[in-house]
């Protein structure tokens, strides 16, 4: 009788542990998906802001049409990146960040452009979006690290194996890119 009770208790405990570990894995995966969608929101937001920027600076001669064309082209490339391809999205996004930076740099030679409130507002919006992209990438990497640690460590690696949890690839944040993002006005 006693042995039966003990066996039952052990089984119940094992099931409870298993369920707990499984739920932990699921919530880690949800967190990492959520944090990707944070990045996605900001990428879309930036894409929405770009036509405004192009419209605002178009009249200023020194903006060689090639710079603007590059931005417009990268923007449409951005929209064509398949939804699941994080690395490619980040690559295009980095290029876009750099081209936008060169537009910002050119505006230095136009005092009246810099003085316009509309342009100032646009700049704040864009630099806000750029910062948010950088910070949500950081958040994504920390949620990914959380999930990956669970997938690799015992005993959650067993549960992860059974239910085919796969590790999430980290987003590369080059050091120079981090500098670029910190545009201060």
């Amino acid at each position, binding site marked *: 009788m006693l042995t039966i009770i003990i066996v039952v208790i052990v089984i119940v405990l094992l099931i409870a542990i298993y369920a707990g570990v499984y739920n932990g894995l699921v919530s880690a995966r949800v967190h990492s998906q959520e944090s990707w969608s944070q990045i996605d929101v900001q990428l879309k937001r930036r894409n929405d802001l770009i036509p405004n920027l192009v419209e605002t600076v178009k009249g200023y001669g020194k903006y060689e049409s090639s710079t603007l064309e590059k931005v417009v082209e990268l923007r449409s490339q951005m929209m064509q990146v398949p939804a699941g391809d994080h690395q490619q999205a980040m690559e295009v996004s980095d290029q876009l960040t750099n081209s936008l930076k060169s537009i910002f740099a050119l505006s230095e030679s136009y005092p009246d452009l810099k003085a316009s409130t509309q342009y100032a507002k646009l700049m704040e919006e864009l630099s*806000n979006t750029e910062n*948010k992209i950088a*910070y949500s990438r950081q*958040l994504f990497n920390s949620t990914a690290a959380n999930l990956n640690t669970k997938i690799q460590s015992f005993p959650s690696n067993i549960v992860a194996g059974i239910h085919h949890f796969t590790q999430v690839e980290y987003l590369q944040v080059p050091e120079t890119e981090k500098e670029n993002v*910190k545009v201060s006005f």
Partner: protein
Amino acid sequence: MFYQQIAQNKRRTVYVMLGFVLLVVLIGAAVGYVFFNSYVAGILMAVVIGGIYMMLMISQSTSVVMGMNHAHEVTSVDQAPELWHVVEDMALVANVPMPKVYIIDDPSPNAFATGNNPEHAAVAATTGILEKLNREELEGVMAHEMTHVRNYDIRLQTIALALSAVISMLVNIGMHSFWWGGGRRDNDREGGGYVQIILMVLSLIVVILAPLAASLAQMALSRNREYLADAGAVELTRNPRGLISALEKISDSAPMEEADPSSAALYISNPLKKKSMSSLFSTHPPMEERIERLEQM
């Protein structure tokens, strides 16, 4: 590491509360004995006043603290775009909801966070900090505040603040009723003897020392949390330079005009800037020490 800190902080909140409740009861008894000639009346008064005040403070902490510091709320992004966006960024990366944002009209650069939990939190910045700091530095400061929010330092501080206010209120009530004639009369106790004299002296000592003990406890709590928040801020921004130069600018400026002394412990840097003789009495660790620790990261 940070999860452990959060758990530790929640535990510590319980200890602080227990310690303070004991202190409040002790003071109630002492005040009652010295001024009303009855322990029970004192304890009862302490518990009732303390209870009401605590409940009020916990449910209203944000508006009470913001009111004490003459802060007004920023309700839309257009009123202070840079501050709003920086707070939004830091909340994003700290993975906490966006707190309420307040501005204090004061040329001295400073900032603080308050509230009960990350869902009901608020951050305040002075107009001085917005003028003097660039975006990178402001990010460092707001990341520091967001760490206070995430680690539940804000709740610990709110409760400590409320309880030390209760203690000074009790002592004040006792003093007033004493001066206005409601106090004990010596002929109430005839043939009291030494025991009563000793009790009387002990009670007086408690009444005199309790507010000091309460603020010492509050200050010690605050000092330790500052180092952790600095470290947490760097974890969020990955950029110690921003916070270092922000702290340098803050420590080089004049003290605040509007700051409320009892909430001094909340600020990122002591807003009153009194050079205390002993570090036991200071709410913040020395700035040089903080900067040095940041530079080693």
